[in-house]
């Protein structure tokens, strides 16, 4: 689905990432770790075309990112669900409308999506927050709303950047179960996190591969977890 071939990236001057090759096959489950500032978010941005590699090539669903035009990027994003580290919303729309935003934006908003939305909001524990405005949410609630928004289009690939940074342990288990469930349905999942407990908990339920960014490159973490 997503292929990185000898990818390098630098914001300016020194390379932040070099020599990264990876294939995200359908139905796989990946964790991405590494110290703060190692380049996890940067790596994910390369995977959903928010950044273009400064070296090597990235193919998303078979298309070379550097050759995609802006509309192609927009269409591609409807097939990739992304939870951003600093989740942002349209502050003048209710939480439910924000979660359903990808539907309206891609012209797929139909009344029968309502049940889908309901169920999803229930999964992430936001039943009571349908009509709240995003600035009225707590930190954890924002993250969960962002996750729900990433999942509403039922994307083929889910990329989540620290989706449990602000939620308690039980809630993070609940969110993890949701992602594992989706993975079982054939979705590709990649979660960037520094919470080793979460990775350990996941390993009990799913065949997860753990990637680690060290020394500016991607390495498969061993059985040390």
């Amino acid at each position, binding site marked *: 689905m997503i292929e990185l071939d000898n990818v390098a990236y630098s914001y300016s001057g020194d390379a932040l990432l070099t020599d990264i090759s990876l294939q995200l096959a359908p139905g796989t489950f990946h964790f991405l770790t590494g110290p703060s500032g190692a380049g996890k978010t940067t790596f994910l*941005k390369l995977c959903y*075309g*928010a*950044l273009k590699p400064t070296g090597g090539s990235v193919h998303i669903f078979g298309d070379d990112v550097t050759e995609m035009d*802006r*509309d192609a*990027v*927009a*269409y591609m*994003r*409807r097939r990739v669900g*992304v939870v*951003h580290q600093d989740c*942002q*919303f*349209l*502050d*003048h*729309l209710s939480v439910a*409308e924000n979660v359903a*935003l*990808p539907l*309206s*934006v*891609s012209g797929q*908003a139909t009344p029968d999506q309502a049940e889908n939305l309901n169920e999803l909001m229930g999964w992430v524990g936001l039943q009571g927050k349908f009509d709240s405005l995003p600035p009225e949410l707590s930190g954890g609630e924002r993250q969960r709303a962002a996750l729900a*928004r990433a999942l509403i*289009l039922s994307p083929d690939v889910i990329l989540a950047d620290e989706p449990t940074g602000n939620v308690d342990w039980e809630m993070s288990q609940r969110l993890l179960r949701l992602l594992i469930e989706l993975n079982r349905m054939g979705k590709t999942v990649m979660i960037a996190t520094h919470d080793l407990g979460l990775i350990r908990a996941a390993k009990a339920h799913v065949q997860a591969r753990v990637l680690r960014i060290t020394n500016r490159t991607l390495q498969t973490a061993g059985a040390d977890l």
Partner: protein
Amino acid sequence: MRARLDQVIALLKGDQGADRIVPPSGFTVRLTLFTSAAMAFLTIFALALSLAAGRLGTSWGDELARASTIRISAPPEQMQEQVASVLRLLEQTPGVETARALSADEQRELLEPWFGPALPVEQLPVPQLIDVSETSDGYDADSLRLRLQAEAPGAVLDEHTRWRRPLVAAASRLRLLGWVSILLIGAATGAMVTLAAHAALAANAQVIAVLRLVGATDGYIAQAFVRRFTLRTLSGALAGTLAGMAALLLMPSAGDVEGLLTGLRFEGWQWLLPLVVPPLAALVAYIATSAAARRVLGGLA
């Protein structure tokens, strides 16, 4: 062209969903509304000023009547000859339309208020008058004077409506000033609407980034903003235009004075002219917002 038309129709119909993504109000929107209203109001005034100046120029120009008189004083024996040579001369002068010697009756009529109807014009050394009417270009008075002096020493050119010329010139300068103001105000409106649209888009940078992240195409995002700002500008300009027209209607009429300064108002079909202002403002807003949206979107991945 067809695609363009579809785009405009889509713009007017609007997309319920797309419309909601732009925050409903805020200072930048109010700013756009007010700017276009104020500028439309000023434009209407400048337009009325230009048209009034134009009418003023025309009416002064008409009254100018483009007429002058040549007065020939000569001893009776030379009179006939001088009159004939002056008439010949005038015939050859470029800018003179007709020239005609007044008859004795006409001269008596002219002098009547002074001397009463009993004046024996024929027996007095009354000068002969020649009525000259110019073409619209007019003739060169100085060179005519020189040639008259050579041909008929007793002839005096009297441009009795020349004094209106500066007034006509003044009126046409006033009209020019009006159009310059309209241009200035138009340019200022364009620049301000552009800046207001930019400011609004900058203020909504987060909205645009979020939309782009969840898979909205540039066209979808741009249209939502363009629609909002075009409509706001249109309604603002419409309000300003109507207010301007109302203000003109309420302007005190000058009464008798109107003969000369035909009032700061529109007349007849001219009342349709200000109605061009709102669509023009909307067009400016459309172009400005499209460009601004393209610019902001270009900066996003």
